[in-house]
C-alpha cells in the first residue's frame, strides 16, 4: 500500500511542474502588455514604463522570471496581488471556505437526487422513466451554467420571489466569521434566522453548480448498477428468495457504489470550474469570482497563483480518491 501511495505521489511531481509552467505561460500568452493594460487610455510615458517594468520584474529574461516564480512558490510565497496589494494566499484563505461550502451543498444536491435516480433507472431499464432520465441527464450535462443560473434567478427570485437573488446571507445578518462557513458560523452564534437565510441563499447556486455532477452521477450509478444486476451473485440472491428491495439495496448497491464514489471524487475539478461561473452570477464571494475579477483587472499575480492553488487542490483530492479506491478495492493495489 505504501509503495502504491509513493508511486502516486511521484507521478504528481511532473504534473506539478507542468502546472507551474502552464500558469506562468498562461498570463504571459494573454494578449497585451500587463503594464500597458493597467494604464488604459492614459498610456504610460516611456521612462515611467521602464521604471514600472523593473518594479514588477518584467524586464528580466523569461527563464529568470520563471525561476524566481518557482522559487517563491516553493517557499510558500504566492506573491502579492497587484490591485489589492494583499498577499494572494491570505485572500485565498479568506475566500476558499465560501467555495467549499457551496461545492459541498452542490454535491449533496447531486448525490441525493443522482444516486436514487440512477438506481431506479437501472432497475426499470428501458422504461419511460429510464429513457427520460437519461435524456434529462444529457441535457443537464450540456447545460450552459451561465444561462441556467440566470434562468433560475429570473424565475424563482424575480418572478416567484421564493429565493434571494444573490449573495451568501441576508444583509441584515452581520457577525464575526469563525470558520468562514456561513451555515456553521450562524449556528455557532446561535442565530437561527441567519442560518435559515444562509440556507435559502444556497439553494439556487447549489442547484446550478450541482447540475452537471448530478447528470454524471446519475448516469454512472445507472451503468454501474446495470453491470452489477447482471452478476451471478445477484441472481443467486434472487434465487434464494430475497425480496427485490433487499437484493438491490444490500447486495447490488454496495458493489455498484464503488465506481460511483470515484466519480464523485473526480467531480471536484468540475465543481471548481463551475464555481467560476456560478459564483460570478450569484455574487458568491469565493475563489471562482475572485479569479474572474482578477482576470478583468489584469491582476496577473492573482491569476497565476490562483490557478496553481486550485490545481493543487484538485490534485490533492484526486490523490485521496485514488487512495480510497485502493482501500475499497484491493485488486487495484496489485496492479
Amino acid at each position, binding site marked *: 500500500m505504501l509503495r502504491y501511495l509513493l508511486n502516486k505521489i511521484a507521478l504528481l511531481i511532473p504534473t506539478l511542474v507542468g502546472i507551474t509552467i502552464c500558469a506562468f505561460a498562461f498570463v504571459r500568452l494573454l494578449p497585451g502588455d500587463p503594464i*500597458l493594460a493597467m494604464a488604459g*487610455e492614459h*498610456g504610460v510615458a516611456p521612462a515611467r514604463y521602464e521604471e514600472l517594468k523593473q518594479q514588477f520584474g518584467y524586464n528580466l529574461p523569461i527563464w529568470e522570471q520563471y525561476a524566481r516564480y518557482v522559487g517563491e512558490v516553493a517557499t510558500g510565497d504566492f506573491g502579492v496581488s497587484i490591485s489589492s496589494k494583499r498577499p494572494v494566499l491570505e485572500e485565498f484563505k479568506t475566500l476558499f471556505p465560501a467555495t467549499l461550502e457551496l461545492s459541498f451543498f452542490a454535491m449533496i444536491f447531486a448525490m441525493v437526487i443522482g444516486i436514487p435516480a440512477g438506481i431506479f433507472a437501472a432497475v426499470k431499464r428501458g422504461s419511460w422513466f429510464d429513457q427520460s432520465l437519461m435524456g434529462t441527464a444529457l441535457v443537464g450535462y450540456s447545460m450552459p451554467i451561465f444561462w441556467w443560473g440566470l434562468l433560475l434567478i429570473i424565475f424563482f427570485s424575480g418572478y416567484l420571489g421564493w429565493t434571494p437573488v444573490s449573495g451568501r446571507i441576508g444583509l*441584515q445578518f452581520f457577525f464575526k466569521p469563525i470558520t468562514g462557513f456561513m451555515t456553521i458560523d450562524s449556528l455557532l452564534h446561535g442565530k437561527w434566522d441567519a442560518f435559515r437565510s444562509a440556507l435559502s441563499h444556497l439553494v439556487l447556486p447549489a442547484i446550478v453548480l450541482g447540475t452537471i455532477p448530478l447528470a454524471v452521477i446519475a448516469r454512472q450509478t445507472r451503468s454501474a448498477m446495470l453491470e452489477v444486476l447482471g452478476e451471478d451473485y445477484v441472481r443467486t440472491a434472487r434465487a434464494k428468495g430475497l425480496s427485490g428491495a433487499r437484493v438491490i439495496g444490500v447486495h447490488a448497491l454496495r458493489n455498484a457504489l464503488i465506481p460511483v464514489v470515484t466519480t464523485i471524487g473526480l467531480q471536484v475539478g468540475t465543481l471548481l470550474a463551475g464555481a467560476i461561473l456560478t459564483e460570478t*452570477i450569484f455574487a458568491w464571494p469565493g475563489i471562482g469570482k475572485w479569479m474572474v475579477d482578477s482576470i478583468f483587472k489584469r491582476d496577473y499575480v492573482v491569476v497565476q497563483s490562483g490557478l496553481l492553488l486550485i490545481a493543487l487542490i484538485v490534485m490533492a483530492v484526486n490523490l485521496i480518491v485514488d487512495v480510497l479506491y485502493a482501500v475499497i478495492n484491493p485488486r487495484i493495489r496489485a496492479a
Partner: protein
Amino acid sequence: MKKTMTFAAALLAASVLSGMASAKTLVYCSEASPANFDPGTTTGGNDFDASSRTVYSRLVEFKHGGTEIEPGLADKWEISDDGLVYTFHLHPGVKFQTTDYFKPTRDLNADDVVFSFDRQFNKQNPWNGDKYLPNLTWDYYTGMDMPKYVAKWEKVDDLTVKLTLTEPNAPMLANLGMDFASIVSKEYADQLEKDGKMADFSTKPIGTGPFQFVDYQLDAVIRYAANPDYFKGKEKIDDLVFAITPDATARIQKVLAGECDVAPYPNPADIATIKANKDVTLMDQAGLNIGYMSYNTTIPPLDKPEVRHALNQAIDREALIKSLFQDAGATPAENLIPPTMWSWDKDVKTDAYNPDEAKKVLEAAGLKEIQLWASDRVRPYNPNFQRAAELIQADWAKVGVKATIVNYEWTKYREEGKKKDRPGAFQIGWTGDNGDPDNFFATLFACSAIGVSNYSSWCDKDFEDLIQKAKKTSDQAERTKLYEQAQVIFAKQAPAFLLAHSQVYAVVRNNVSGFKMDPLGIHRFDGVDKAE
C-alpha cells in the same frame, strides 16, 4: 484579516437586529470589489465609489451631478495673478471619523493636506513605497502630470495651505477635486507607522467624508455608517451597505426584488424590463466620454479639411450609432466634449449625412483607398470597433472609397495608432478624468500630444493658442469663451469623425430620493434619502 468585529459594527448589527425601523439602511449593489480603500493608490470607478466618495473629502468638490467646482474642505481659495500660487483656507473644526480603530485627538489641519500629497510623490516619505504597500504606482498622481506642475505644498498656518506651481495650469483646481486628491489623516498615519501596522491604512480608512467605514467582508459586503461629525451635517441615511454583485442581470433582479435600492450599469437587454417596472426608475445621462475616429491630417489627401468633411458626410451616423449601441443608446457627438461639461457649445454642429456631396468632393480629391483601423476591445465609448469599421467601410464604398480594415490587439493597436506616420482613419475614444475641458482638448489634440495621444497628428495654430491660453487663465467665464472658439475651429477643421457619447444608466427604487447621475461616472450617496 477582517475578522475583528468592530464596536461600531456591533452597534450596527444590534440596531439592525433590534428592528429595521430605527435605522435607515440604503443598499447599493456595486459592480465590483474595491482593490482597497486608499484612493491615492487605486484607479477604478468602483474603488472610488467605495473609498473617496464615501469616506473621504477633498479641498474642492465637484458639484453633485455636475463638473463645476465648489468648496470642499477649503471654504475659499485665492489664485495669484500669475496663476502660480494657490492659497487654500480650510474649514475650521473639521473632525476626522472616530471609529474603534482610531480616535482623533485633533481637527483636520494643513499638515493633513500637505501629507496627503507628499506621500504620493516624495520618495523619502515612508508612505510612498514598499514600507506601506508593495508595488505602489500612484497612477493618477503621475497620470494627471502632477509631478510636472507642482513645485511645492506648504503649511502657512493650521488652516492655510499654499500650493506653488511650476507654470500656470488652470485645470489644477479640477485635479484637486479628483479622487486621488482625497485628504487623509496624518495623525492616523503616524499612529499606524508607530504601531507597525501601515498596511491597515488601505483596509481601515479614516477620512472626513459623509460615511465612515465599518466592515468589509472580502468580495461580498462593505458596511458604512453615517459620520455623526460630518462637517456638512450628518446624512439622512444611517447605514450604507455595498452588496458586491458583478453580474449585471443579477444586479437588476436584486433591485427589482427590493434586495438593493440602487444599482449601476444594467445590461442593454434588460432596459425594457426596467422601464416596464413601476417600482423602479431608470436614470440615464450622457457619460463623460467621446468615441471618435482620427484622420492622420499630415498625409495627403487627408491633410485637406474638405476631404475629411466629405468622409464624415459619407457616414450614416444615426444608423451607425443605433447598430453599435442598440437599446442602450448614445448621444450623437456634436463636439469633442460631452454636453454635461461646462463650456460645451450648443451652436456647434458636426457634419450631417450627405453622401452625394461627399462623393463629389472625394472624386475630385482622387481619394480611392483608405486604411480603417479597428481593435478587439469593448470600450465604454465604442462597444464594437470591428462592427463600426464594417459599417463605415460599407458607407464609404457607396461614395467610391475602398476601405481596408486594419486590426491589432488593443495595446499594440494604440502603440501603432499613435505613430506620426500612421495612415488612414483610426478609431479611438476617451473617458474624462476631472470634468475640465482641458482634459479633452489638450490631452487629445494639443500639438505636444502628437505621437502620444493626438492620433490625428493635428497641430492647428489657432486652436493650439486658444487651448493653451485657456489652460493658463484662472477665470472660468473667460476660459469658457476660449473653449467655445476652440470648438468652432475644431468643427471647421474636422481632424476627426465624432461618433457619440455613450449613455450611462443606473436603476433606483422609487422610495429613494436625492440620488443623482454623475457625469464623472461616480456614485455618491451624500444627500440621498430613503422613504420607509
